[in-house]
């Protein structure tokens, strides 16, 4: 069937994309001045010590060989050991990835339904005061960079009012409500960054569909505005909406770097930033690869949704 062929093509290119990225990540770290061995010793290096570590790490072997080894290991979620802590990176990442996903998913659970709902309401009450106010507010909150929004929120709600903590610390013993309370401010910061974009594009996609002739047909059938929007317009706007939602979800996972740093949240983004300052190259490689995979998988999901939303692809022409 046409859909499966299209899907297979998309997945194939996704894999190719991921492979290209892995090459880029590996060669980028390879191009940095000084290799791991010299980094570890810092200022106190002696040529002999560097040389022996280089042997130990296998850095004297050609890069292609090391790349293949690294890739094969990464495919099994084995990213080697951190230089800073000497612990296996997969262990290090595991918990932090969970925290980052917790933050991203909580935000997504709030932002996506809210953005879709508000986008639909804006379409339904187009050009009303509500529509104008929401659109203006969306522009205002989307415009400042996240670190500004983050510090601003922390200043008011944590420092001045003391409602929420400014630094997030979650422990396994916390209840769900406590966790939500702890990550509330960073969630809102992220929400501000992506809500406006999703809401406005949902509205734009729906309004463009509402211009289509079949909407007039629906009106002339005497259907209610709500039914026209939900049953006739929304299914036709799924492809563009899915695309913007997915781009924002990917942004939530990747874009947490800034927010995690602002709120000192021990997630994957924070780990990556810390690793960059300590030049813990294997960790940087692992984090980059995880972020890239997230991006590609989410984009594939958007493609899949768009394909499945198109009846021409789901149902072949009758013969």
């Amino acid at each position, binding site marked *: 069937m046409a859909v499966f062929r299209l899907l297979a093509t998309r997945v194939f290119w996704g894999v190719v994309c991921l492979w290209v990225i892995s090459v880029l990540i590996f060669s980028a770290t390879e191009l940095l001045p000084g290799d791991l061995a010299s980094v570890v010793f810092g200022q106190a290096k002696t040529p002999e010590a560097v040389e022996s570590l280089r042997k130990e790490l296998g850095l004297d072997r050609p890069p292609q060989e090391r790349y293949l080894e690294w890739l094969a290991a990464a495919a099994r979620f084995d990213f080697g050991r951190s230089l800073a802590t000497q612990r296996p990176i997969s262990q290090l990442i595991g918990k932090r990835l969970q925290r980052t996903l917790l933050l991203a998913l909580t935000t997504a659970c709030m932002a996506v339904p809210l953005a879709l709902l508000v986008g639909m309401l804006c379409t339904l009450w187009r050009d009303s005061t509500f529509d104008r106010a929401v659109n203006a507010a969306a522009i205002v909150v989307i415009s400042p960079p996240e670190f500004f929004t983050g510090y601003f929120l922390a200043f008011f709600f944590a420092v001045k009012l003391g409602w929420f903590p400014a630094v997030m610390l979650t422990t396994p013993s916390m209840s769900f409500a406590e966790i939500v309370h702890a990550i509330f401010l960073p969630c809102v910061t992220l929400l501000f960054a992506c809500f406006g974009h999703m809401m406005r594009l949902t509205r734009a996609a729906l309004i463009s569909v509402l211009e289509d002739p079949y909407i007039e*047909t629906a009106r002339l*059938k*005497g*259907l209610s505005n709500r039914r026209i929007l939900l049953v006739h317009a929304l299914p*036709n706007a799924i492809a563009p909406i899915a695309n913007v939602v997915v781009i924002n979800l990917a942004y939530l996972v990747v874009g947490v770097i800034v927010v995690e740093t602002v709120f000192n949240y021990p997630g994957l983004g924070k780990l990556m930033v810390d690793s960059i300052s300590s030049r813990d190259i294997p960790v940087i490689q692992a984090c980059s690869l995880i972020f890239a995979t997230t991006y590609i998988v989410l984009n594939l999901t958007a493609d899949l949704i768009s394909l499945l939303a198109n009846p*021409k692809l789901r149902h072949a*022409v009758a013969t």
Partner: protein
Amino acid sequence: MGQPNKDNDLVLDIAGLSIVSLHQHGAQPLLKGLTLRLRRGEILGLIGESGAGKSTLGLAALGYQRTGCKYDKGVVRFDNLLLHSGDEKTLSSLRGVRMAYVAQSAAAAFNPVHRLGAQITEAARCQAALSRREAERRMVSLFRRFDLPEPERFGDRFPHQASGGQLQRAMIVMAMLCEPQLIVFDEPTTALDVTTQIEVLATIKRNIRAHSATSALYITHDLAVVAQVADRIMVLKDGMLVEENDTKALLTKPQRPYTKELLSVYQVGRKRGGGKKKGRGVLLRGEGLDASYGDGARILEDVSFGVSEYEVLGVVGESGSGKSTLARVVTGLLPSREGSLWLGGEVLPRRLKRRSKEQLRRVQLVSQIPDTALNPRQKIGEALGRPLSYFFPQRTQAERERRLGELLSSCELDSRLTNAFPAELSGGQKQRVCIARALAAEPDIIVCDEITSALDRLIAKGIVNLMLELQEKLGMAYIFISHDLGLVRAISDDMMVMQGGKILSYGAASGIEKSEDAYTQKLLRSVPQMRVGWLDEVLQKRG
């Protein structure tokens, strides 16, 4: 609501209705005080060119105005309910159940993501007019009556799984499902091929006319079509009534000059005799042409033809017949896969890039939609100046300016238009500019690809007459491609009928009715004729 009508038979009573369209520069009237009365069981034809306000009137009959249009004054009374002042809730409860709409393009008017059956029964189900089972039962029986394939299962199809003619019939099923008192047909056959149009017309005629409880407004720009279905016709122009009469009387004894003009669009023809053409050599010849897009199916199969100097070769076919592809092959836009072209005595290369400047000059193209053929950021003078400087670089600036003026005047365009942008011109003017641009190259042959189908009939007639006059004066040959068999037959010397990329019949246009090809005969029978009873005769002959 409202006062009771004296006439109980009156379904729709519109009096002094004015509707305006809202612009940045104030309101523009669309309807100027129109009055219309429709009796039970009557079909009223509304006819006029674009901008006449006929769609606006049709929609107003359903209490609906498009975005940007606004009710101004007047009364719309439907079965003793005042629609112009009705609230949305009342109107919604009427629409789809007691009054229904059939749109021009059913392909666009059905929602692509829902099955046809669900859409057809939707109004009845949502307004609780019929139970789901009853709605579906009626739908299937209407499918059967309308000759739709697999009536039991047709409703399971998505819009893209049905043909244009089937969709248009499905749309009529949707309109008729709740047995409404009023159906508004808005150009229901305009987007269809003639052979499909006749099926839809037959469906409307058999089912609406037989159904005395249903009245209809039938909106179209085509008098010959409306003459087949309407009891009475109203001619509209610029939002006003020009003339109203019984169908037969209006066709035979039109009172107003505008009506007479509309009737005359069916009479185009060439004044000159065929004798002039004799003794002239073959100008363009194609032999065994095969073409396809990419590696796809063959769009042209073994097409051969010849055009002599000062000749019109007509090419007729329905959508998908390959007639436009033939134009692309002749002009080199699409290199043919097989076969060859000759221009004069020499081989005309298949690829545009291989053709010499002289060959390019000699074959020119005018295409269907002038909007896409003219660069919107180029002034008319620049658009026409380009071929002048490209093909005739040896001429002086003064000569070119003089030639530009000649071109405009020969295409009956104002010389002041040189400084206008395409957006400032009307559709007919734009097409004239395209013709002038083709003439600028002083070609031997012009390929005209559906040059009139995007235009109103009266304007199209003007364009055709212009083309014929220009030929008389300048003596070039035309390949005239159109879906309009009547038109092609009237102006061509030779004509060919195409279907599925093949030539089915080819010969003198005057002898086309003698063609033995069944499809050609079907096409000839399907062209609507401007007289009452034509459709009945055709249907009767078929039995």
